[in-house]
């Protein structure tokens, strides 16, 4: 029983989730707005508590199953914020389209819990369980719109393929467990560092593990579920899939790779490079021909996963010969910071984009690009934020996407992956076409009707926050980078 208090944030989140379920019984149908309010207030409280309580604390729980450090603190707070944003952005959508609000919000909060655990897990089984916890929540949320055939279809596809991927992942874990005798990241690193040759079985194990994780981040060729599920899911959940699930998986992967797989990274690099190249090319290419805006953003987020994979493949330099010196570590830290920064920047931009889509969907009932026509006139503020998020996703300055991409690519090229970076930059050129196509419909095409779209106070506030965040990170990323550096240092092999 060592130091359960360090898990207080998680415990609070669990309590919050259950209490929302409970409260839901007692409030009448027309007062459901209490639920999100309560959730947000509590999440804010938990966030503050976490920041105050956990800052500077470093510990391993239960023999290294869970790690409490700067890295997990960073991601925990990020996920708490994300949870808050998702809840706020869901309010209107849920009110209009979904029943069973209490369950919706509590499941959402449970996924936040799962993400928090993912970022701090230091062991494969823990990782698997928290991953499954996240997935379960998402399976339900994706299929939450019960009478919507698309939502059903998305849910079915997601859960069947998710189960398949978790089988593959588990097979990988079983191989690793069997051949290394451990599932702890640290111990794995020690064992791998001491063996010179790798058992082919182990190799299959790691690859299956990567395949399983690749499914979660929608890396090619494990990406095919993503467009369908993104399209079918309720829009706030699509945002969750695109941002939360992806960020959490990358948080997990980063910790796993850095503290567990580093000795193997030189061998693993080529696979990651291939996956990264395929992912960013295919994702951006396919997005060119989409007409559904959510599906388009799904492909775009596959492309972005490609950039993050590029970062992963650049964790070691291609010239690395197995000697992990100080310069090597700091380059790796550079790349890790880049990945985290890009995850954050991409997340914020995507959240803004999906929020805009869900607001537009609420008014027009359509999700095709053509239906965006004339939004620029109907709601200037909304379309400004949408445009900003699109620009940010396309990686243009003064928005967050520019600096994050630049930072990530700089790191990767410092590791000698300049050719891969060149492919990445080229695919981001391709991506510009479809991003501009969105803008074309928003601003240039004229709409048939001239019905104004009025933003609710909540949407307006949230959009403003996201807009300011995008611009702030874009023009002054130093504070965020400070935090990220702290997180990275905690993860770094220096410790």
């Amino acid at each position, binding site marked *: 029983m060592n130091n359960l208090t360090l898990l207080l944030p998680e415990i609070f989140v669990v309590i919050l989730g259950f209490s929302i379920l409970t409260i839901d019984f007692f409030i009448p149908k027309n007062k459901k707005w209490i639920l999100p309010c309560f959730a947000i207030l509590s999440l804010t409280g938990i966030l503050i508590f976490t920041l105050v309580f956990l800052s500077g604390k470093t510990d391993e729980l239960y023999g290294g199953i869970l790690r409490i450090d700067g890295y997990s603190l960073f991601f925990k707070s990020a996920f708490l914020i994300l949870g808050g944003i998702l809840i706020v952005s869901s309010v209107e959508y849920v009110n209009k389209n979904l029943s069973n609000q209490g369950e919706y919000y509590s499941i959402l909060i449970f996924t936040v819990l799962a993400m928090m655990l993912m970022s701090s897990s230091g062991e494969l089984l823990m990782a698997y369980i928290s991953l499954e916890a996240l997935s379960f929540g998402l399976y339900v949320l994706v299929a939450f719109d019960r009478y919507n055939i698309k939502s059903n279809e998305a849910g079915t596809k997601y859960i*069947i393929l998710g189960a398949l991927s978790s089988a593959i992942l588990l097979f990988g874990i079983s191989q690793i467990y069997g051949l290394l005798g451990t599932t702890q990241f640290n111990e794995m690193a020690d064992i791998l560092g001491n063996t010179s040759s790798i058992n082919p079985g182990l190799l299959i194990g790691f690859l299956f593990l990567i395949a399983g994780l690749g499914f979660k981040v929608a890396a090619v060729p494990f990406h095919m579920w993503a467009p369908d599920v993104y399209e079918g899911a309720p829009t706030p959940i699509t945002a969750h899939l695109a941002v939360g699930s992806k960020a959490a998986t990358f948080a997990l992967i980063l910790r796993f790779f850095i503290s567990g797989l580093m000795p193997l990274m030189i061998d693993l690099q080529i696979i990651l490079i291939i996956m990264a190249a395929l992912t960013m090319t295919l994702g951006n290419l396919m997005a060119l021909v989409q007409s559904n805006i959510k599906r388009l953003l799904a492909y775009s987020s596959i492309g972005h996963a490609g950039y993050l994979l590029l970062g992963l493949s650049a964790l070691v330099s291609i010239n690395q010969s197995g000697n992990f010196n100080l310069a090597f570590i700091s380059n790796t830290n550079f790349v890790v910071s880049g990945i985290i920064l890009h995850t954050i920047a991409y997340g914020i931009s995507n959240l803004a984009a999906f929020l805009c889509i869900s607001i537009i969907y609420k008014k027009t009932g359509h999700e095709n690009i053509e239906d965006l026509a004339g939004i620029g006139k109907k709601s200037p503020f909304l379309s400004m934020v949408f445009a900003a998020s699109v620009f940010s996703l396309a990686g243009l300055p003064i928005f967050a996407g520019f600096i994050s991409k630049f930072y990530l690519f700089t790191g990767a090229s410092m590791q000698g992956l300049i050719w891969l970076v060149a492919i990445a930059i080229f695919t981001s050129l391709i991506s510009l076409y479809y991003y501009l196509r969105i803008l074309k419909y928003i601003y240039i095409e004229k709409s048939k009707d001239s019905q104004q779209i009025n933003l609710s106070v909540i949407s307006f506030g949230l959009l403003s926050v996201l807009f300011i965040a995008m611009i702030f990170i874009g023009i002054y990323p130093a504070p965020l980078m400070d935090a990220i550096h702290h997180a990275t240092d905690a993860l770094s092999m220096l410790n």
Partner: protein
Amino acid sequence: MIELTHFQILSGFLFAIGLYGVLARRNAILVLMSIELMLNAVNINLIGYSIFMNASESHRALGHVIIIFVITVAAAELALAIAIILRLYRNKSSINTDDINIMKW
């Protein structure tokens, strides 16, 4: 004498059969069953390793722990999947996976 290899071969076969099932079956329930098969392949693999592992008790016990978790999670997953498939059946009157392709390309 049963060795680790036997476990591995059995597990591998089971996994492959499960995978085949997932790919070849059109009935959603059967697909789920196939996935269950794959998970069980994992369990057999784990058991094999756990028995023949040349390591401390606690490490060998870890295999069993994982198996228990896998069984639990698989059960939960199945329940969830069936609930969702049921929903689909309500709306579409079909659980043939060939019928669920509104969203493509």
